[in-house]
């Protein structure tokens, strides 16, 4: 192993750790013997005392920590509670207010990674909780104080997508006084509001809703509108993004403080889908197609709503009877359809069927499962449809056949199980919403994850519905999940408020989790500069040296630690996740029964989150697992793996985000993937079984996959013995 460098940053003075073990109501205490964990923790080196608390995160819990800092003189804090992904910031702020450096707090995740996944094995869960605490304490003994970075803010927002939500976001931001660039891939603004005809909430033509918005946004001197344009590349970080936008004519790099994604959705395409063979039959329309048909019919009448007359199909024939089928593409199992409910299609049907019944005298029947209308005025619309003569039947569509010019429908009535037969002139498929085709591309450009349903993933479903996992990138409208116009407009405003929180400031404080390079031990190989996903390491010439030395441009560093992962000497390191602290955790984790343990390095964004998700879903797996959190799988240096096997680890796992696109740091996962076979070879040379070392990709939503992986590794471990 390379000679260890001399570090300039020595952990200050005597280490005095206070440990707080949380009951979390029953969440932890009903499985883990909290008192025993406290007992155990109080005897660990460096620990001054250990306490238990019903809810550490509540105000009294935080206040207690602050008081202990001043009264008991503790200078490090370990909170054994839930996932740091949930509450690390909470406790960082708490100790900061108490006068400590915020990086002197560490969390042992004894809830998501312990009590919630080992609820049938209380004894082993308690043992594991003790060890997780000991690992945290070991990390704290090696902790450094980190300084926040101050970065200036570029006062401009880029809004991607010019539908109602994007327009609304741009409108509000411009009114708040900020320059905005609006990027739209089509040649005109307005999105679906231009395609569709009438809004169900207020009965107004959608054009009248969106046209004034387009005009106002276009005429505002603070907005810059780029139509037929796409975002091709993104560089930089919160407060300082560089967005590369291209259209046929030009390519522009726009500097912006934040980005709002408002790229909307697509309609579910039923034709060619094996689940809906009848979708291609004549006179079978989708709801957006019917929308155009109704519009055409009205326009022929010169906008007079109340004159009756029959509905004419595109070929001019009269339509008298119509059947609607709900949930097309939604609420289905299997690959060809979506599991989720599209939320708006019931209302679209209610609106359209009412118009057909009222203004065109059609006989309308709607086959549905549940009618889902949730706004306070929607139930009245549903009742109005019924009063207008629309018949709603809870039924499953069986077969649909062409029968001359009409359609023959067989359905099974769910209520009382009757068989239904209908002859209709036209059938309408109430199609759901699917993620916009470009989401996949954009996700890779912006490095923001998708949820299981393919829509963009918000950073918390309840309390951060507009934020993404990338600081400074926000979501508006249906690109996050099905929404109607009203909700899209509201979230457009909401995203603007989030942007305002950044743009109203002169400068932002970013955390101090950055790379640092020790020039003494740097041999100038340039590996780090080559692997850094953001290209923020430069090689600078130094007198008397042939190769030069690496230097980090700190303001732009994201702290992924890929440089530290590849550095052969340990000169490159990441503050907050530095080598000594990780080595210390490895040692503690493998102190007892190393051979029976799985030691895992999980990246913060995907696989650690995936393990958290397994916890949230209460998916049990064997308690032999010990997780060390790193920001990115690319941070894992081969020295960690070798060390683990030297100490006799049963299995070693590195888990990261799915390549190529999921990595929070562009390509950190790929960087590790390249090193993986080499490490295996090295292990073999040293006489360890390379098969005991695994690399896996787990996303933030793959709780079940994570469970399965650990179960497999554990059973392999047992069989191998």
């Amino acid at each position, binding site marked *: 192993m390379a000679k260890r460098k001399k570090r300039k940053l020595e952990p200050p003075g005597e280490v005095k750790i206070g440990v707080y073990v949380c009951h979390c109501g029953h969440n932890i205490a009903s499985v883990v013997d909290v008192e025993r964990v406290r007992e155990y923790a109080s005897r660990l080196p460096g620990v001054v005392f250990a306490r238990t608390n019903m809810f550490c995160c509540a105000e009294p819990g935080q206040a207690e920590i602050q008081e202990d800092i001043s009264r008991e003189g503790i200078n490090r804090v370990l909170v054994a509670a839930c996932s740091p992904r949930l509450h690390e910031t909470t406790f960082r702020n708490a100790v900061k207010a108490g006068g400590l450096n915020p990086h002197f707090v560490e969390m042992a995740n004894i809830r998501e990674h312990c009590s919630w996944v080992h609820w049938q094995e209380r004894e082993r869960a308690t043992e594991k909780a003790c060890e997780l605490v000991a690992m945290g304490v070991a990390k704290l003994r090696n902790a450094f104080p980190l300084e926040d970075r101050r970065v200036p803010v570029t006062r401009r927002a880029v809004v991607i997508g010019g539908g109602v939500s994007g327009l609304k976001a741009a409108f509000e931001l411009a009114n708040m006084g900020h320059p905005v660039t609006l990027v739209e891939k089509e040649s005109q603004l307005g999105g679906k509001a231009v395609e569709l005809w009438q809004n169900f909430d207020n009965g107004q033509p959608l054009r009248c809703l969106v*046209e004034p918005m387009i005009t106002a946004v276009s005429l505002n001197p603070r907005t810059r509108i780029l139509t037929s344009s796409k975002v091709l590349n993104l560089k930089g970080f919160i407060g300082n993004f560089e967005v590369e936008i291209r259209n046929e004519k030009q390519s522009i790099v726009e500097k912006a403080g934040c980005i709002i994604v408002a790229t909307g959705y697509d309609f579910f395409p039923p034709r060619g889908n094996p689940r809906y063979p009848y979708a291609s039959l004549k006179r079978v329309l989708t709801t957006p197609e019917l929308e155009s048909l109704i519009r055409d019919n009205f326009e022929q009448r010169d906008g007079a709503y109340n004159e009756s007359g029959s509905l004419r199909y595109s070929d001019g024939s009269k339509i008298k009877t119509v059947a609607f089928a709900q949930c097309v593409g939604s609420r289905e199992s299997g690959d060809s359809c979506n599991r989720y409910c599209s939320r708006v299609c019931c209302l679209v049907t209610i609106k359209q069927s009412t118009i057909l019944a009222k203004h065109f005298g059609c006989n309308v029947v709607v086959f549905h499962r549940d009618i889902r209308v949730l706004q306070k*005025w929607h139930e009245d619309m549903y009742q109005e449809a019924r009063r207008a003569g629309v018949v709603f039947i809870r039924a499953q569509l069986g077969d649909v056949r062409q029968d001359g010019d009409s359609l023959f429908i067989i359905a099974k009535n769910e209520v009382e199980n009757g068989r239904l037969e209908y002859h209709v002139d036209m059938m309408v498929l109430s199609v759901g919403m699917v993620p916009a085709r470009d989401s996949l591309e954009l996700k890779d450009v912006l490095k923001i994850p998708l949820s299981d349903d393919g829509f963009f993933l918000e950073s918390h*479903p309840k309390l951060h519905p507009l934020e993404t996992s990338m600081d400074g990138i926000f979501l508006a409208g249906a690109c996050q999940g099905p929404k109607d116009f009203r909700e899209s407009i509201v979230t457009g405003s909401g995203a603007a408020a989030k942007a305002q929180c950044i743009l109203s400031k002169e400068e932002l404080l970013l955390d101090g989790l950055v790379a640092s390079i020790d020039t003494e031990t740097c041999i100038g190989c340039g590996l780090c500069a080559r692997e850094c996903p953001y290209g923020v390491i430069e090689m600078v010439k130094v007198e008397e040296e042939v190769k030069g030395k690496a230097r980090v441009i700190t303001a732009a560093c994201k702290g992924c630690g890929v440089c530290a992962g590849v550095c052969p000497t340990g000169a490159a390191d990441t503050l907050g996740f530095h080598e000594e602290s990780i080595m210390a955790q490895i040692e503690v984790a493998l102190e007892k029964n190393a051979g029976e343990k799985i030691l895992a390095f999980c990246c913060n964004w995907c696989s650690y989150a995936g393990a958290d998700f397994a916890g949230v879903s209460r998916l049990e797996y064997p308690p032999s697992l010990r997780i060390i959190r790193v920001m990115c799988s690319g941070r894992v240096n081969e020295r960690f793996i070798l060390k683990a096997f030297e100490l006799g680890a049963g299995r070693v796992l590195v888990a990261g985000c799915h390549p190529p696109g999921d990595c929070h740091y562009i390509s950190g996962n790929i960087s590790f993937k390249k090193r993986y076979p080499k490490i295996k070879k090295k292990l073999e040379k040293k006489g360890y079984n390379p098969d005991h070392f695994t690399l896996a990709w787990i996303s933030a939503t793959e709780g079940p996959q994570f469970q399965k992986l650990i179960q497999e590794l554990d059973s392999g471990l047992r069989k191998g013995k």
Partner: protein
Amino acid sequence: MDRSSARIVLCECPGHHDTKKVHGIRGILAGHGIDCQCIRDFCSLEVFSRFVEEIKLKKYSALFIVGCGFELAGDYLGKTLKMESPGLDVTWENLGASSDDLEIAAKIIAWYNAVPISKSEVTEKKHFDKKVPRVLVIGGGVGGCQAALDLAEGGHEVVLVEKTLSLGGNMAKLDKTFPTLDCSICILGPRLVEVANHGNIELLTPAEVKVVRGSPGNYNVRVVVWPRFVDMTKCSGCGKCADVCPIVIPSEWNLGMKPVKAIHINFEQAVPLRSAITKEFCVECRLCERVCERDAVCLDDRPVEQELEVGAIVMATGAKPFSPVSYGAYGYGYIPAVITNMEFERLVCATGPTGGRLITPEGAPARTIAFIQCVGSRNERFNRYCSGYCCTASIKEAILALEHEAYGHITVFYNDIRTAGKGFEELYQRAIEKGVRFIKGIPSRIEEDPYTKQPIIHYYDMNEGKRGKLPVDLAVLAVGLVPDESGIDWELSTGPEVDEHGFYKEREKTLHSLKSNLEGVFFLGTCHGPRDITQTVGEASGVAAEVQSFLNEKEF
């Protein structure tokens, strides 16, 4: 008379506005010698930009625009007009089906005759008051707190007024939240602490707004801060006082299900974490006063009135669960094992009355549980609207019940299952996989078994087409949300309008769903109709943006 600085525009969009009506109005005006102009596609970029140029060129000072009205076009185009031609007086009128042409023409004529003739008069009439950059947020539930935070982070001063002793509203009382089953107070608590500690937020609890006066941008508000009988600045929340207090009362916060002392803290994670005395029950033994190390108890505390100047007001007063007492057929109130879903949330919560044990009022484990949906919702007798949250909430609670009682039997009686939200349908499927039984058909009544004291549910299963009786250990009523009274005296020409149900009424359903009819008064969350937390939080941020863009608009 020369009123050449005034201009009247009639929009005649084909397919939207009734051309006959537009021409009728033009005819009437012409009869009065008033000129007007009919424009097609007025709001389109091309036509409107030409119009703006013309206004600047001819230096008009007053405009009357008849078309979609303020609600659809006016708010957006009005901002452009004000920016391009500061000081311009614009009136919007809706040509919508309801108002007839004579009425509109009469309005225009009256307006025309009132337009000042000389330019000097024009500038005198306008006032250029500055808007107060401070915002009042009323209601400290999850929505009010989020709005306050976003406004404060955007650089505005915020006064947050909460009626009860602590922040958090209904969400603070929930055990878990759907669809991820996150522990509710665990995710909310830190956010509440953040509100209480934010430098730009002034928190007033327990307090209520009494009177609102003034004008948009310059509201004058009178707030009364009710006495807690404990000095907020001194109390540390140690709880020693409650230990010695001899008076035991039901905890209002725990829906009367848990005993507390007359001096108490609402719950362990309350923000602000300060004691308070429920004065009606206090016998003034002064034991608490003696034991308090910080001299915080002050039994002769009085209500304090404060006057505030604010630019905008955000209503976030929430909604309250429907009281099923009036729903006689379900026996709520006299069959002890019939409870509401909120009571169920407290029951399964570790900090609730039973410490999280799921038991019947008799103390036995509750194994068979039934949820009855739409209680007080979707019903002509009570409320016609759907409360939106309760289907998913019951599914969540059914799963929670199974986590407490792995071999429990859970049945949900429903009308439609309305799990329309991100991840909600998936939760519904998960409940089905876990064996929760869903029966379509709302039960007709519940009676109590005289011997076992179990509620017996009488229902009709619409899918099977047959009647049934189901004895259960607990019957949980999924009650809807109903509007709450704000008790504010709006000393203005009008207060914010409410709809037929009593919820605040949106200025326009789609475009301005967070604005009231009063300029500068906004709302969010359940006070303008039932919705879930995600939507409430999204709206809170939305309001924050709209308030800030309102305050940033210089002239009005």
